[in-house]
C-alpha cells in the first residue's frame, strides 16, 4: 500500500502540513512508515488551481491513500473521482500520522473544506 501525506519537510519525523494544495511536500510511505518517495509540490506556487494540480500529482504518484488536513472542493472532486480514500491528518509528525492511520484512528474526509478561489 502506498500512502501520500502532505508534509512540511522531507523526513518521516517532519510535521504533517495541514494544507493540501499549498503543502510543501508529499511524502510517500508504505503502511509501516517506510519511506518510498518524496515529491516537491510544484502546485505550491500556482496562481490558481493549486488543489487540482496537487491532486493530480498525488494521483500520478500511484498513491492508494491520502492523508492531509483539508481538501478544497476542486481537489476533493479530483481525489474522489479517482476513488482514493482521504483521511484527516492530526497535528504531529508524518510517522505519528501513519501509525494513527494503521491503528484505524484517523477519520475519513467526506466533505470538502472552504474554497479558496475558482469555485462557487
Amino acid at each position, binding site marked *: 500500500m502506498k500512502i501520500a501525506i502532505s508534509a512540511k519537510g522531507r523526513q518521516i519525523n517532519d510535521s504533517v502540513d495541514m494544507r493540501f494544495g499549498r503543502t510543501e511536500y508529499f511524502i510517500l510511505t508504505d503502511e509501516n512508515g517506510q519511506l518510498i518517495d518524496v515529491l516537491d509540490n510544484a502546485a505550491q506556487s500556482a496562481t490558481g488551481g493549486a488543489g*487540482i494540480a496537487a*491532486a493530480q500529482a498525488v494521483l500520478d504518484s500511484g498513491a492508494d491513500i491520502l492523508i492531509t488536513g483539508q481538501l478544497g472542493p476542486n481537489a476533493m472532486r479530483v481525489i474522489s473521482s479517482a476513488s482514493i480514500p482521504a483521511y484527516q491528518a492530526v497535528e504531529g509528525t508524518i510517522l505519528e500520522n501513519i501509525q494513527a492511520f494503521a491503528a484505524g484512528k484517523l477519520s475519513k474526509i467526506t466533505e470538502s473544506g472552504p474554497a479558496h478561489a475558482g469555485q462557487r
Partner: protein
Amino acid sequence: MLKIAVLSGKGGTGKTTISASLASIIHGCAYVDCDVEEPNGFLFLNPKLDCNEQVLVQVPQIDEQLCNGCGACVRICQFNALALVRGKVLVFPELCHHCGACSLVCEPKAITEIDRSIGNISWSSNSCFFQGRLNIGEPAGIPIIKRLKQEVSKKIDLKAAVFDCSPGASCSVVNSLEGCDYASIVTEPTPFGLHDLKIAVELVREMKIPAGVIINKSGDQDAIIDEYCLAENVPVSLRVPYSRKIAEHYARGILPVEDDEALAISLTELYHSIRGEVCS
C-alpha cells in the same frame, strides 16, 4: 475620445466619488465602471440601463467517446483547469482562462469549446454610463472589462470617458488602464494610502501612462503624500478637503459636486488641464 483612468491602489480612497463627479459635470463624458466585482457608480449616477449583453467565454467540453486519455490537454493547461483521472479528463470551467491551448493539442479532436456566461455589461443608450458586472463566484472579470471597453470605443461621439478602476494593481486594473491617455491616482494622506499609491505609480510608469495624484480627505497630514510626490516628480493635481458632509452625502448616494461649486470648478479645471497635457 480622451480616456481617463481613475485608480488608487488602496480601496476606499474615493475613486468612484471622483470619477462619477468628473463624468457628471463634463458634457459628453461617459462614466465607465470597470470595478466589475462590485460596481457601485450607478448608485450615484442613477442611469437608465436600457442596453445589456451577456459576456461569454469559451471553455472546453470533452467528448468522452473521442478522448483517448493521453493527458496532453492537462499538461498544456497553465491554469490547472483540467485533471486526468483514470483516463478521464475533468474540466474546472471557473479556472479556465479561455486560451484554447487544450483544443489545439488534442490529437483525437475530442475538445470543443462551448460558451459560458461569466457576467454582463450594461449601458445607457445615451452613452453616458457603462458598467460591467461579474457573476457571483467567478474568479476573473478580465473578459468583461475588455468587452466593456470595446463597447465604449464604439461610441465615437463621446468627447471623453472616465474609467473607474477596481482597487489594487492586479490584472483587472492593468486591463482597465490599457489604452488610456491619462491616469488619475486617488489617494488619502495615510500610511496605507501612501503605500498603495507607490504601487499605483509604479504601475502607470511601467505602462507609460501620464499620471497625476488626487489627494482626497486632504488636511494637515498631506505632507506624507507630498514628500513622496515631490521626490518622485509626480504632480499633485487636486486636493479634496476632508469633509464630513461629503461622507454624509456619499451615504445617501449624492455626489459632492451636486452642491459644492468649488469642487465642481476644480474638477472642470483638472479635466481641461488633462486634455491640454494629453493633446499637446
